[in-house]
Structure formats: structure tokens, C-alpha cells
């Protein structure tokens, strides 16, 4: 403790688990945006990761409420957020926004993988076959009408999902940004900053996961895709840094009463995580690396390795950003004259061990899901069981006239 803090502030209230939550939902939002970039805006270079990112988003989405539940003083009453929400509170939105987005994710994932599920349901026996048959929800065949409906719904859901993802993570930003009592949190830019860093972290983790998974499976990596992801990461990183920079510069320039404690916070209390990890390691170095790779316009192994490295740094940087916001903000005493400190305990409900388990859980869920429906093998397409689908989205007027029948066999094949 430094300086004078109010008597009730000896311990901070929101711990490591609350650092985890925006990190996890951020990854969901980011991964989903990549998926939608393909499904809605037809960025063809992102085709190899479109379904991959959807599964990644789903895995993290399922884990998202767990850190919150673990943190509540009364977890058994967590259901009250659904039953008796008080809608002036941003936190009351969590229940419905999360549920709505989960349903959207589940529906879109189910629709995207429905051909595969129906194929596997037919061809697999035993217990696994039972799982597939359950997943088909009793609808084991797909007709022409089903295919058209499926394509249309995927597009609709992917489109609706973008503002929904913005809401999912934007409301977390608003949750912090609307607290006038905390000068480090209180800014109207907070939802924007959170959303941008969310997209950045999602794209970065997608790059990392894609490369790691493909390497583990011994499959070739699509360097064109990595290069495209690297460019999108760069673009969002630039916008993110601009907005974050504007916020802190504006605070420093206007130097309102609270700037005294805020500047002490970042210079004396959290300089390593703020300047060292979040800004230098997590933003500036990746910016330079990604910029250099994009300028060189190469698409091969070396470039992809650099992009991979930059992505790893970005993920660390975004985690540090969440830490700096959540923990850093609480370190400032409401007396404006002192700071508390926080070291997360190792064990316990909110300790480092619990947080590590929660972070590893989505990867485990992901591995379970891809063991059922691997997005890099689309047997239903390969074996010609389905009628050929258009690989490129065609405008409605064109579809009405004729189908573009390009080779459906290389859909998502590396």
C-alpha cells in the first residue's frame, strides 16, 4: 500500500478471474469477426480458417461465464442475473447477451457443419456414431432446399453476429468505462478500445492456433491465409493503438485533477506491464514486424513465422492490457491519494492455478470438438455425397439464373 487509501480498500475486489473474462470474450469476438469476414464479405483468402475460427469462438464462448461464476460472492445466485435483471446495470446485460450470442454461435456452427454431421452420422458406428446422430437432431438428410436455407442462414447469422460480437465485448468495455468513480476506467472510448483489442487478440490467437494445430497434424499451412490474417491484424492493431493512444494523450494533455494519480499509476505502479508489455512488447514490436512483412508482400515460410511471432506477442500484450485496466484501475484509491497492491494467490478459487485451468479449458474443448468435426477435412464434399455447392457467394440475381459450378471438391482443402 502506498499513500492513503480508504479503510475498505485494503483488498481489491475484482481479481485475476475478472482479468480473464474480457480476455476470453475478446478472443471470441475476434475469432468470430474473422469467420464473418469470409462468410459475409467473401474475403477468399480467409477461407481456410473460416470454420476453424468458428469452432475456436465456440470453445471460448462456452468457458466465458466460468470466471465470472467463480468470482461471485454467491455463485449459486448467479442465475438471478437471468431472472431478475436490473437493466440500468451493464452487468445485467451479460446474461442475455451471452445467451443470445451462444445460441447464435451454436446455430451457425451447427449449420456450417451440418453436411459433415449428417455424413458422419451415416458412416460411423458405435458410440461416436450415436453422438453424430444426436447432433443431427433427427434430421439425417439434406435436400436441395436445406442447402439453400443453410447457405442463407449462415450468411444471416454471420452478419448479425458482427454487431452481436461488438455488443458482447462492447458491453464489457462499457461496464468499465461507465464507472465515473474510477478515473482510469471512466472514458467513453472504453467500449471501442475493448472491442478493438478484442478483435486484435482474436485474430492473433487464430493465427497461433491455426499454425500450431496444422503443425501438430502434419498438414501444410496456407501461407496466403496467414499473410491475409497478418494484414488484418496489422490494420486492427493500428486502429487499436490510435484509439488507445488518443485516450491516454488526451488525459495527459488535459491533466484534470485525476491525472495526478493516473500518471503515478502508470509511471510508478504498473510501468512494466503498461509500457513494457502492453505497449512495447505487445503493440509496437508486432506493429513493426507486421508492417515490415506486409510491405515485403511475401507469402512464405519466413513471413509466416514472423507473423506467428508477432501474433504471440500481441496475445501477451492484450492480456497485459486487460490486467492493466482491471487491476491497475483498482489500485487507484478513491481517496485519490494512494494505491493498493495486488498479487494473485497461487491457489484458491481466484488463484493463478484456477485461472490457468480456465485458460486451458477452451483448448481442451476445441480438441474435443475438432475430433468430432475437423474443419480441415470435409468428407461430405470430397466423396461427392452432396450436390455441388457454389464456392463463391453469388449475388441473388446471378444465382437465380445459374449456378456457378466451380470445383466444389477443393472447398476448404489445403
Amino acid at each position, binding site marked *: 500500500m502506498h499513500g492513503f487509501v480508504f479503510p475498505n480498500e485494503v483488498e481489491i475486489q475484482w481479481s485475476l478471474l475478472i482479468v480473464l473474462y474480457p480476455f476470453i470474450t475478446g478472443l471470441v469476438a475476434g475469432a468470430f469477426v474473422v469467420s464473418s469476414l469470409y462468410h459475409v464479405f467473401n474475403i477468399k483468402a480467409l477461407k481456410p480458417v473460416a470454420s476453424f475460427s468458428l469452432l475456436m469462438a465456440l470453445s471460448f464462448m462456452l468457458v466465458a461465464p466460468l470466471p465470472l461464476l467463480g468470482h461471485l460472492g*454467491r455463485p*449459486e*445466485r448467479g*442465475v*438471478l442475473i437471468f*431472472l*431478475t435483471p436490473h437493466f440500468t446495470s451493464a452487468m445485467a446485460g451479460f446474461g442475455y447477451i451471452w445467451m443470445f450470442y451462444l445460441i447464435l454461435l451454436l446455430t451457425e456452427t451447427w449449420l456450417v457443419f451440418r453436411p459433415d454431421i449428417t455424413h458422419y452420422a451415416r458412416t460411423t458406428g458405435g458410440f461416436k456414431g450415436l453422438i453424430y446422430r444426436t447432433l443431427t437432431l433427427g434430421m439425417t438428410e439434406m435436400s436441395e432446399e436445406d442447402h439453400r436455407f443453410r447457405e442463407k442462414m449462415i450468411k444471416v447469422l454471420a452478419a448479425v453476429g458482427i454487431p452481436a460480437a461488438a455488443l458482447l465485448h462492447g458491453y464489457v468495455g462499457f461496464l468499465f468505462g461507465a464507472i465515473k468513480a474510477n478515473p482510469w476506467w471512466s472514458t467513453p472510448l472504453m467500449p471501442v478500445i475493448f472491442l478493438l483489442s478484442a478483435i486484435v487478440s482474436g485474430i492473433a490467437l487464430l493465427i497461433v492456433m491455426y499454425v500450431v494445430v496444422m503443425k501438430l497434424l502434419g498438414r501444410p499451412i496456407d501461407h496466403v491465409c496467414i499473410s491475409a490474417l497478418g494484414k488484418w491484424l496489422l490494420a486492427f492493431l493500428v486502429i487499436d493503438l490510435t484509439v488507445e493512444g488518443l485516450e491516454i494523450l488526451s488525459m495527459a494533455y488535459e491533466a484534470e485533477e485525476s491525472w495526478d494519480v493516473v500518471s503515478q499509476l502508470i509511471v510508478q505502479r504498473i510501468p512494466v506491464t503498461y509500457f513494457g508489455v502492453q505497449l512495447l512488447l505487445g503493440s509496437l514490436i508486432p506493429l513493426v514486424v507486421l508492417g515490415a512483412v506486409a510491405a515485403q508482400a511475401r507469402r512464405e515460410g519466413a513471413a509466416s513465422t514472423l507473423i506467428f511471432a508477432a501474433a504471440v506477442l500481441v496475445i501477451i500484450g492484450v492480456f497485459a492490457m486487460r490486467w492493466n485496466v482491471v487491476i491497475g484501475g483498482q489500485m487507484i484509491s478513491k481517496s485519490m491519494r494512494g494505491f493498493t497492491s495486488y498479487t494473485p494467490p497461487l491457489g484458491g478459487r481466484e488463484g493463478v492455478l484456477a485461472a490457468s485451468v480456465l485458460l486451458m479449458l477452451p483448448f481442451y474443448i476445441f480438441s474435443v470438438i475438432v475430433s468430432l468435426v475437423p474443419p480441415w477435412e470435409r468428407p461430405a464434399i470430397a466423396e461427392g455425397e452432396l450436390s455441388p455447392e457454389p464456392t463463391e457467394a453469388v449475388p441473388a440475381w446471378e444465382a437465380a439464373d445459374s449456378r456457378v459450378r466451380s470445383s466444389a471438391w477443393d472447398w476448404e482443402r489445403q
Partner: protein
Amino acid sequence: MVALLVGVGLFMRTVTASLSVEVIGLTHEDNPRWWADRPVNNQTSTACAECHEATTEVTTAFAHASVNCDSCHGAAREHIDLARSGQQAPLALADARDLCTTCHTGLDSRPQDFPQVDPATHGAPASGVTTSCTSCHNPHDPGFPPVFKHTLEGRQDCLVCHGPEQWQPLPPSHADRTGDSCIECHRPGDGT
């Protein structure tokens, strides 16, 4: 559809009730009443007067009228409840010096017109005799000089207060008794 709704309804009625440690309250109608029904622990002197009328009369008449009995003697509710039911429950009283100095130690932050002293130099310690604040000040009528009949307990050296240069020197009638022991006439305990 109807069956599903009924099922969900029954589920919520049974399961959510057991999930919550307390029964879920949907409205706040009862909650202010819960707060209003909390037990009152600190009492004013009016409650103490029920049994301690004489002391309360003194206290409320003089400088410590604004000091709650509970401030020094502790929260009285339990004591009163027990006493009313016939049981004795003496309140533990902290050391007088600790109690008095909490308010009356001289501090820069205190308003100048508030009576405050330096406990290291105030009163008998200067003469080398250890006394308690209550040696000279009646806590219930703390004005100075003490006008109460006091026992000799803690006041072994009479001359600390009654010596020739002190606060209440011996009256002329005692001029020829300096060598005698005071307690030959002033018996301990009866305040004479």
C-alpha cells in the same frame, strides 16, 4: 409446447429455490422491514437510568452529558437484557487512562476550545506518583477541581493534591498536623 412450459415452470419453482441459500426475494417490500428490525445495541443514558438513576443524573447534568454511557462502558443492550431478566452482566471497563486519553490527549488536529492535555505531563506524573485520571476527575462529573468525596484508593500521597503549593492545600486548621498520618482521622473508604 405447453408441457415444456409447465416443465420449465416446475423446474424453476423447485430447483431454483434449492439453489439459493436464502429464498429468492422478487420485490423489496420486505427488505426495509428486515433492516428496520435489526437489534439496537447501543443505548442512551435513558436506558441506563432505569437502574443507575443516580449516576445518570450526575452525568447528564455536567460536562460529559454529551458522552454516551456506551462510549466508555461498551454497548449495553446485552447487559440490559440480562439485567432485566435478573442476571448480572457487568460491563467490562477499560483502563481509565486509555479511555480518557482517547478524547483528551492534546493533538494539533483537535479544535483549540476542546479541553485537552499532554498525558505525559498532566497531573500527578509530574510529581512521580502514578495516578489514574480518575484520581482527580470524576468521570461522570469531570469538572475540575473534583468536588466529590473520594476514597483514598490510588491516592496514597495526600500531599500531592493537598500539600502547601498544590491545588487544594490543607485548611489553616491543619497547620499543626503536617507530621501526622492523615488516615488517623480520614478513614479510608468513607470519603470523609
